[in-house]
């Protein structure tokens, strides 16, 4: 061993002497069950020398196979959600040879309905661990200006991280979900200084579920398809790849009267991956926006420090007021037991919890709700899907929907009354409007409660009805 590689034997011995627990009682059985679900490569030969072979394919999940961690590929999705239309991004898939990363499995039989196609898209999104792509956005800055195309590099992970970086300079924003920090680089074209915002909540109502240009493209497409009813699905070819295409009617809002947003969406879904290829948004036949994804890589390793990049130059530091904590710490700090769901759609796992005694930004439409006090916000994740459950004190004040859209959107919330869980006996509002993140909110037990995320209406209602104070 060289001098430069000297090992600290005393430290090493001490580290090796620390206790190491045995596996839990179910570990071996669960592992064996999962290994047995894996199909061997078709051309592997036990007598041949080890060498490259096709990766194993995962068998369809067996319903009764025990798993320590639930990552079930097939989901039961349904319901009637429409999609957000003001900002939609389509994914145009151009897989290149030796692209790296995981090639998602095939989708089986072609869907015959929009709802089935929506379920396939949702299924694909729920399985993704990392997504890298070039996002091409074509839109008009205003109705009287010509179309302009901007290209971004997009990164997303199933831990909630996101990076959107304009190719050629300009916009660059990175969100590190683990630390609750967002970094936005200085934009020389606008004269903007860099900004670092720490203390961010994991999601609504205190922050959106990612950049609109990136977030709503994926979950939004799935929701649009599930709400498309009996709209016919056509088989097409897009960029040489077999795809499905469907046209859906877009909900209007006040901006659409001026041609800002569309009245029709044409969605193209890649048959190989189940991911959106392209979305064309038109208003009375005139192109309003088109979104595509190119150079898509799924589950490929990401370079380091993509979500906490170094910023050059001075940066304005902001604090969103939240800090990561456990639910138990939140309870001890705020004097009330936070709520946690007793039921979650298959595949969702609890991720991070953040708490805030107060925040600089009130919630609700145009920020008109009372100041937030003693808020607890917990994210649950499944692939690229995120669900956030939040509570904050009512403080005797009057509250409106904390997750509401800004003015100008014709929203139609539904009244929702609960008979089970911590919300039993209370009524609130359920929002499954195309332009909003699906959510439900209510007031119960002195708390303003929200459940928001990439769920169907039925799933939202069930999660909300299962909320209970932590033990």
């Amino acid at each position, binding site marked *: 061993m060289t001098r430069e590689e000297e090992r600290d034997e*005393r430290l090493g011995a001490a580290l090796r002497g620390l206790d190491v627990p045995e596996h839990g009682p179910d*570990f071996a059985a669960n592992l*064996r069950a999962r290994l047995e679900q894996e199909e*061997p490569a078709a051309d592997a030969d036990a007598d041949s020398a*080890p060498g490259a072979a096709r*990766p194993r394919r995962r068998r369809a999940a067996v319903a009764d196979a025990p798993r320590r961690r639930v990552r079930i590929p097939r989901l039961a999705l349904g319901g009637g959600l429409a999609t957000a239309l003001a900002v939609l991004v389509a994914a145009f898939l151009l897989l290149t040879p030796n692209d790296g990363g995981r090639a998602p499995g095939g989708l089986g039989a072609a869907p015959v309905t929009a709802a089935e196609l929506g379920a396939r898209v949702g299924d694909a999104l729920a399985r993704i661990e990392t997504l890298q792509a070039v996002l091409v956005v074509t839109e008009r800055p205003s109705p009287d200006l010509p179309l302009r195309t901007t290209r971004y590099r997009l990164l997303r992970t199933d831990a909630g991280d996101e990076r959107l970086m304009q190719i050629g300079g300009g916009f660059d924003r990175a969100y590190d979900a683990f630390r609750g920090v967002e970094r936005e680089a200085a934009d020389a074209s606008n004269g903007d200084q860099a900004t670092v915002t720490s203390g961010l909540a994991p999601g609504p109502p205190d922050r959106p579920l990612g950049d609109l240009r990136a977030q709503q493209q994926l979950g939004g497409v799935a929701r649009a398809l599930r709400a498309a009813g009996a709209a016919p699905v056509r088989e097409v070819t897009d960029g040489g790849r077999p795809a499905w295409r469907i046209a859906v009617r877009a909900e209007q809002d006040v901006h659409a009267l001026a041609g800002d947003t569309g009245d029709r969406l044409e969605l193209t879904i890649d048959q190989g991956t189940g991911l959106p290829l392209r979305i064309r948004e038109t208003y009375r036949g005139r192109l309003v926006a088109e979104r595509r994804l190119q150079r898509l890589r799924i589950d490929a390793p990401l370079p380091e420090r993509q979500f906490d990049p170094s910023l050059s130059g001075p940066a304005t530091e902001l604090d969103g007021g939240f800090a990561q904590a456990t639910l138990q710490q939140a309870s001890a700090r705020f004097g009330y037991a936070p709520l946690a769901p007793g039921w979650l759609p298959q595949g969702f796992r609890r991720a991070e919890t953040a708490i805030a005694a107060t925040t600089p930004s009130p919630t609700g439409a145009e920020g008109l709700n009372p100041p937030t006090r003693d808020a607890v916000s917990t994210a649950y994740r499944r692939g690229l899907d995120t669900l956030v459950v939040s509570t904050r004190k009512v403080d005797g004040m009057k509250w409106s929907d904390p997750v509401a859209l800004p003015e100008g959107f014709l929203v139609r919330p539904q009244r929702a009354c609960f008979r089970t869980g911590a919300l039993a006996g209370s009524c609130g509002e359920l929002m499954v409007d195309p332009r909003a993140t699906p959510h439900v909110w209510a007031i119960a037990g002195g708390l303003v409660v929200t459940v928001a995320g990439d769920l169907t209406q039925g799933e939202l209602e069930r999660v909300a009805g299962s909320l209970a104070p932590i033990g």
Partner: protein
Amino acid sequence: MTRTPTTPADRRLLQRAQAGDPAAFETLIEPHDRQLRRLAFRMLGDRGAMDDALQEAYVKAYRSLPRFAGDAAFGTWLYRIVANACNDELRRGARRRGDTVLDEARDVAAGAPGPDRAAAAHLDLAAALDAIPPDLRSVVLLVDAEGMSYDEAGEVLGVPAGTVASRLNRARAALRPALAGYGEVPS
């Protein structure tokens, strides 16, 4: 530690595992399991998270095994998968440090009636390890605890050997004060 199947029996085991024999795969990884448990537990601080990360890692290794050509040592290859799985768990916020410290404190309290210097020293080192960032924790575990070279550790973590060395210096500086209680208690 970086045992690679070299005997005919080992190579046969590897071939069977690559062909899709779960029992062969389990036999293949068993000699590495304790060290991998140590790495995962000390990275994540919780048995549940340790099992989560290891199960994910072992399944990924099983899936990737047909592509393992033996260019790298098998143990190094496996360590890399486990280290990545631990980092994934950390990024998902699976770490529950408070629980770990409480568990160890209870174990100490249940033991000898009086002060237990050896147990206290263990707690100090475990707490000190727990307190350093994950990227420092991983290098000191791989190099000092598991005996890897800087190159091997760099291969596991996907960083240059120089980065291993610099992180190791910082980790050791943070941990050595916690060794004060070691060496004073008879083994």
